[in-house]
């Protein structure tokens, strides 16, 4: 179980855009065409390597339905990364991105890395949202962007790893106080603490109510 860092991810987005399938493709390397509706939240985990360091990803795949929102919101704050997913064949899932983003900005910590994913890019003939539109939205809101397919596995690895790389870079740049686990980052036993390791003195007292 030794890892340099542990990152917590959440996967959010409208129901049916393929969140659970992306997770399954990433953790089990398989695709399940018919997937039960996610109830509440499902968990998955995988080890990856960034900069030669083992990094454990803990991923919580949330239910897209409105009725589970109060449960899924509980996961925003403690996550270091979020995969915001829409379906390139269903325009409305793209139109809802703004409200998802607003939800995330409101409940998550400000430094959360968000990756925008246009899923189902294998269904090019049914495309309803162009790649350029996706890029444009990501650019406007400061997100990383990728089109992916949970079915063909195209860009799935890349999406999760690129997000991790971005978080890793933020740690190197000293953006996070890694001793505070409420950012969704944990320094492992087998790893080397980041350069900001010594800065926790100031925040240890009021650790309970930082925001």
């Amino acid at each position: 179980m030794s890892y340099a860092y542990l990152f917590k991810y959440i996967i959010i987005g409208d129901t049916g855009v393929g969140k659970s399938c992306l997770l399954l493709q990433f953790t089990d390397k398989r695709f399940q065409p018919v997937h039960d509706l996610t109830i509440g939240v499902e968990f998955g985990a995988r080890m990856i390597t960034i900069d030669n360091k083992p990094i454990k990803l803990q991923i919580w795949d949330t239910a897209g339905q409105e009725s589970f929102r109060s449960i899924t919101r509980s996961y925003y704050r403690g996550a270091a990364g979020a995969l915001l997913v829409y379906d390139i064949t269903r325009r409305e899932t793209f139109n809802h991105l703004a409200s998802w983003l607003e939800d995330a900005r409101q409940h998550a910590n400000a430094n959360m890395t968000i990756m925008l994913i246009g899923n189902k890019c294998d269904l090019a003939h049914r495309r309803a949202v162009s790649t350029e539109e996706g890029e444009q939205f990501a650019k406007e809101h400061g997100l990383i962007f990728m089109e992916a397919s949970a079915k063909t596995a195209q860009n799935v690895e890349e999406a999760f790893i690129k997000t991790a790389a971005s978080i890793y870079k933020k740690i190197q740049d000293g953006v996070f106080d890694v001793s505070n686990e409420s950012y969704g980052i944990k320094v492992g036993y087998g790893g080397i603490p980041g350069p900001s390791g010594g800065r926790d003195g100031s925040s240890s007292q009021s650790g309970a109510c930082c925001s």
Partner: protein
Amino acid sequence: MKMDLVSGYKGVVGLVFGNENSSSNEDSYIERLLDRISNGKLAEDRRNAITELQLVVSESNSAQLAFGAMGFPVMLGVLKEERDDIEMVRGALETLVTALTPISHVKGSSNEVQPALMNSDLLSREAESISLLISLLSEDDFYVRYYTLQLLTALLTNFPQRLQEAILTIPRGITRLMDMLMDREVIRNEALLLLTHLIHEAEEIQKIVVFEGAFEKIFSIIKEEGGSDGGVVVQDCLELLNNLLRNNGSNQILLRETIGLDSLISILKLRGSNFTQQKTINLLSALETIKLLIMGGSETDPGKDLNRQANKTTLVQKKVLDYLLMLGVENQWAPVAVRCEAMRCIGDLIAGDSKNLDALGRKFLGEEPQVEPALNSILRIILRTSSMQEFVAADYVFKSFCEKNADGQSMLASTLIPQPYPMNRAPLEEDVNMSFGSMLLHGLTWGETDGDLEICSRAASVLSHVLKDNLQCKERVLQIEIEAPVPSLGGPEPLMHRMVKYLALASSMKSKDGKSGASRNSYVEAIILKLLVTWLADCPNAVHCFLDARPHLTYLLELVSSSSATVCIRGLAAVVLGECVIYNKSSESGKDAFAIVDAVSQKVGLSSYFLKFDEMQKSLIFINAGSTLTRKAFTRSSAASMADIQDEDENDLSEQGNLDHPILSSILNSYFVNLVTRLEADIRDQIVEVYSHPKINVAVVPAELEQKTNESDSDYVKRLKAFVEKQCSEIQNLLVRNATLAEDLAKTGGGQNSQSEQRVSGGSDRIQLETLRRDLQESSQRIEILKAEKAKVESEAIMYRNLAGKIESDLRSLSDAYNSLEQSNIQLEKEMKALKSGGSSTFPDVEAIRAEAREEAQKESEGELNDLLVCLGQEQSKVDRLSARLLELGEDVDKLLEGIGDDTGAAGDAEDEDTD
């Protein structure tokens, strides 16, 4: 709504605490205090008022009720608006805690109003107040956080769902609660209890709590507190842990995949040999965690099996078997309860998992040179322990090891080699070098001298696991022969015969002993019978071996109808008898299936034989239903009772008295019960089968009843007579049997009228029916043949009739032809006569010649006319062609032709005019 409630409470106050004056005094006193708190000018006065209020509320139920009716808005007001005045906030919180805490010294009846519960209800109604309380957890003041946690815990105990819903809607609500785990010790301990209540039966909250890092925090607290040597806090931690893992696949995966199981397994690591009550409970709680992981997620989870498998594999990879063996087998000081739980965990861990089975099979315990296989050590526990619970737990390990593990069974069976007699006498304590088989055989024959068959029966239980569903092992063990205890008493006998002897010994001892030893020996008998049932199943050679000694059958028949045996014993004995029928391949007379059925029918009676099954079935179902209730959620109180297993053991023994021994419920496990149920159905069918197809001396073949082609009538009659004679004697035999059956039916059918009775007698009816049906079938078959023959003959007759008809008609046409020939002949004769009589017939000839000539002339003139016409046509066409040519050359044709023939020209003109 709220107003109604409040006025309702006021009414209740008056009603319940009858004394109108005192309660109204109290009411007004509390009212005054509340007034001072909300409207007081001096801070000191308000603080005094709140302290006083808290005191009053803590004193009586009526004050709690009165406070509930009026106090909440005031208290919440303080909490909301006077955060700066820590003392006021503390006072308000303490008062609220007091109002929600039942006053214990009042022992009221159950239907009395519980003010603390009502107050909880009132406070938890508004989600806003919960949010307010959660926000107080961020206060710096220790007491504020402490009281707040207590308050929330009180609310959670009474209205868990309401609180769970409210906390979910509060942003960072759960995070705040989780932070309390890292707070000062007192707060942390409170928070542990609160979280345990919060996650109760709320899967999604369990996941959020884990997301917030609950596992890491729990394990770090356990480590801090000294692992299993720690106090009640460790127990609380483990209870929280168990509640997070119970039926929650997602959390189990997270623990396994990202935290790892090392921290959990290290709790099982023992330091020192001192086992306090608390340490016992802590270890039991940790073993419960292992068990929860082995059980996997909720039943509805599609990935349940995968998850369970992964948990088992990971646990064994992390060497959990070593720790469990240390706790359950090796450690001398571990309390029985811990040892039993550890062994049950081992059983669960290996059940149905080939890798883990191998891992256990390869384990060795002890230190050089005193090393032996772990399974041998567990067998020794079975043979030596004084605790029935421990025997059952160790037996469970063998059950799990042998089930669907033919290789493991063969490995164990291969060591079953009888040792020379003197070796058997070595005391068990010195047998580290003994093989599994020698130890088991030793155990099986242990009771030889002192007549105590308990150890023998335990060994028999292990042996039945080794033989279960494994024909090879059954055959192998059949070969084992045991020396007689005293060589002079005769030669060696098969192990199976020895076991039957012990069975007989056990039942005879019971009848001698009277009541005291009854329950004990009833399970000895049951276990040995279970061994026989398992052994004989699907194994004709075992049946043969069993029936080899004539007294066995007699004894078993007696046991089935013995009035001193329990329902269970009689039923199991009946099953063994049944196996002697269904797995009987013998054709030796007196030992074949038919002979056994006859013996049963004569000695026991078929219906009363079948009744034994029904009776046992009822009691087995009862036993099973009882045993499934034992698995419950683990709580502080149940943990304490678990630790006291040893005491219960003895109680159970004495309480059960006459009933079947409680041990039976674990020995006759569901696997065995299923086997027995299956066997029972087969036995019923087989016995009916045996009766409906009696061994027939005279074959009834309809074809042979016909007269053969070269057979004379007298021979045919002789043959038929012989046949009828044979059949007559056969019928005589069957009649005798039928009479026995009828007698049996009459004996049992009249007295009782239970359902099972009817079913059984229905069975013998079925036998009769079966034979009747066969007869019917036979005769109808013959009718069928006759019918076919008749049809054939009929069709032939029709054919012949048709043929005859045809020939008749041919004949008729021939005679017709003849008639017409005759007629023409007559006419010709007549003509001849007429010719002879004179010819006056020349006129017609002259006329004919004339007509001929005329015709000829006509033909000739016609031909000439035709020729003329042709010539004329040719001339005309010539004229036409020439005229056309002339026209081309510019000549006037009409003028040229004028005068050539006026007739023709005029005619041409006339024609021209006509066509115009």
